[in-house]
């Protein structure tokens, strides 16, 4: 596969005062140019930490292992200067909460200009023109006067559009989007998703979309990777994974959702709570809550295995799931 970004055996351990937290453990991902990969999981599954580890945005108490390969170079060992060149210009990032992610005391224009100044050779006039163009691109009208305004003068949806404009300023080939619609009103969520999809195809950009919302994944992602307790459960084309899951966790997750075809079917909540990740189990982290669990699930960690072309799953019950539906 022609890959834009390849994540190999990514691990993130937080060294906190009270002990270690294993937030991400052995995650492999690959994103092709122009592809939209969804990374789903519940709160605390490590999906946002994975995204931040890729761009090396975590703070010093996070110890990252593995490799993040971008154009043949490992971002995790790249010198600071070279990393600055990849951030913004190669890999753009947007966060969940635009009000928090935009600097409250700098104008939107300046916050766009910073990216342009860092990554393009444009002169002042060129950067101004490009900034106006970017606001137009993300659907912010009256760009010239909007550039002089500050984040608190924007509405929630407009702030998210502004953040997208900033992230896209230097034409990145990959956009890392960390729950980009979670903080927004439902009506605005849909607009922002459409905008992201339009930008991805217009700018032939790839996107890693981190979300807890399987509905969002179904409507936007080409492929999906499911995470649980810091580990990858399964990956594959979105339609296949959501219609015929090959991991017991994905299966349980889907049964807990109201689906279209099963309007009368009872929702099945997943019993129990996600495991503590300060003491990872030697086996499958989902085993204690899993209805398909076998004795070995508690002791032995299932490895990621190819189950079909382009699909992989780390579940001992992967073959039983296909027929059980």
């Amino acid at each position: 596969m022609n890959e834009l970004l390849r994540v190999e055996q990514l691990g993130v351990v937080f060294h906190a005062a009270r002990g270690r937290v294993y937030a991400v453990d052995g995650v492999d991902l690959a994103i092709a140019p122009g592809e939209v990969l969804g990374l789903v999981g519940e709160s605390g599954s490590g999906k946002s930490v994975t995204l931040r580890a890729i761009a090396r945005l975590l703070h010093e108490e996070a110890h990252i292992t593995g490799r993040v390969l971008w154009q043949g170079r490992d971002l995790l060992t790249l010198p600071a200067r070279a990393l600055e060149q990849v951030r913004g210009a190669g890999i753009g990032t947007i966060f969940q909460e635009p009000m928090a992610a935009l600097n409250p005391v700098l104008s939107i224009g300046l916050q766009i200009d910073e990216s342009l100044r860092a990554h393009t050779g444009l002169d002042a006039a060129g950067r101004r023109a490009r900034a106006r163009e970017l606001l137009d691109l993300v659907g912010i009208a009256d760009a010239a006067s909007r550039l002089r305004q500050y984040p608190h003068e924007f509405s929630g949806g407009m702030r998210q559009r502004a953040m997208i404009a900033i992230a896209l300023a230097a034409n990145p080939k990959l956009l890392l989007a960390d729950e980009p619609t979670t903080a927004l009103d439902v009506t605005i969520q849909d607009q922002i998703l459409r905008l992201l999809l339009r930008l991805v195809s217009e700018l032939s950009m790839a996107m890693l979309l981190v979300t807890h919302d399987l509905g969002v994944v179904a409507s936007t992602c080409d492929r999906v990777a499911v995470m649980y307790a810091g580990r990858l459960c399964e990956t594959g084309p979105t339609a296949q994974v959501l219609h015929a899951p090959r991991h017991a966790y994905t299966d349980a997750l889907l049964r807990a959702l109201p689906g279209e075809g099963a309007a009368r079917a009872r929702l099945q909540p997943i019993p129990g709570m996600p495991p503590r990740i300060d003491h990872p189990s030697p086996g499958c982290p989902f085993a204690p809550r899993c209805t398909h669990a076998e004795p070995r699930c508690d002791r032995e960690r299932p490895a990621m295995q190819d189950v079909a072309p382009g699909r992989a799953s780390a579940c001992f019950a992967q073959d039983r799931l296909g027929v059980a539906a």
Partner: protein
Amino acid sequence: MSRGTWLVGRLLQIIPTLLLIGVVVFVLVHLLPGDIVTSMLGDHATKQAVANLRRSLGLDRTLAEQFVLFVRNALRGSFGDSLAHGIPVARLIAQRLPVTAMLTAMAVVIAVVLAVPLAFVAALRAERAPDIAIRVAFQVGLSSPIFYVGLVLLSVFAAWLRWFPVGGYGSGFLDHIYHLILPAFALALSLSAILMRNLRAAILGVIRAEYVDFARAKGIAARLVLFRHVLRNALIATVTLLGLSIGSLLGGAVVTETVFAVPGVGRLMVDSIFARDYPVIEALTLILAVVVSITFLATDILQMVLDPRIGR
């Protein structure tokens, strides 16, 4: 509300503030124990002399009339003559005020120059050796009284090493600076400790802000992230603190000028209190209060410049 309206409103606030200061100073002087005329002329003055002085001081009029007169004179900068020096109070203060202004300004510069870089180092190395060393050093500075710091500086750098003069003000601008270095340092020490602690905490609060991570994610230089995104936001609170500290800095100047024999208004205030030189005390209190309110005004305006959310 536009920022212009906010600014005009803030400027107008200074009028009731100044009026209130005038009332307080006026009332305070009238509450002072003992009759001012008796204390000026002594117990053995003739009735005629007392009456004459009362008239010339305006003390035979009603309190309201006296207040109006006081305000009118204060606005004209006329505070009468000093009882101790026999020259107009305004001229006396005009000689001394620049000295204190320079001392305070130097103290502010020293405090900021010490506090800002060290706060940065402390915050970026939080809870590690540099941070702990800096905090302990400043804690000592913060808990040492000015007069003690002053005396230590005097005995070490003036008396022993003879790098600096033991007191006075010298003549000529550079000589003034040379004479004021030790007193300004003594005055700056506790302020710089307060600023350092405040800025360190503010930087720690900001450095993990989402917008700082977002700035890093944009791939701008680390230096820009630190100065434009971290320092600028952290400084907003510290600037306010600095503005609010000018009042206590002037209070500290009284002590510093006494220890270092610097002929500023702080020293003048102390001398005047001991000499019961009421016109000087009155005028100085008024002027210092006005200086402090103007500093507060300047602080508010500076904050508006730094933080676009204010006044919108």
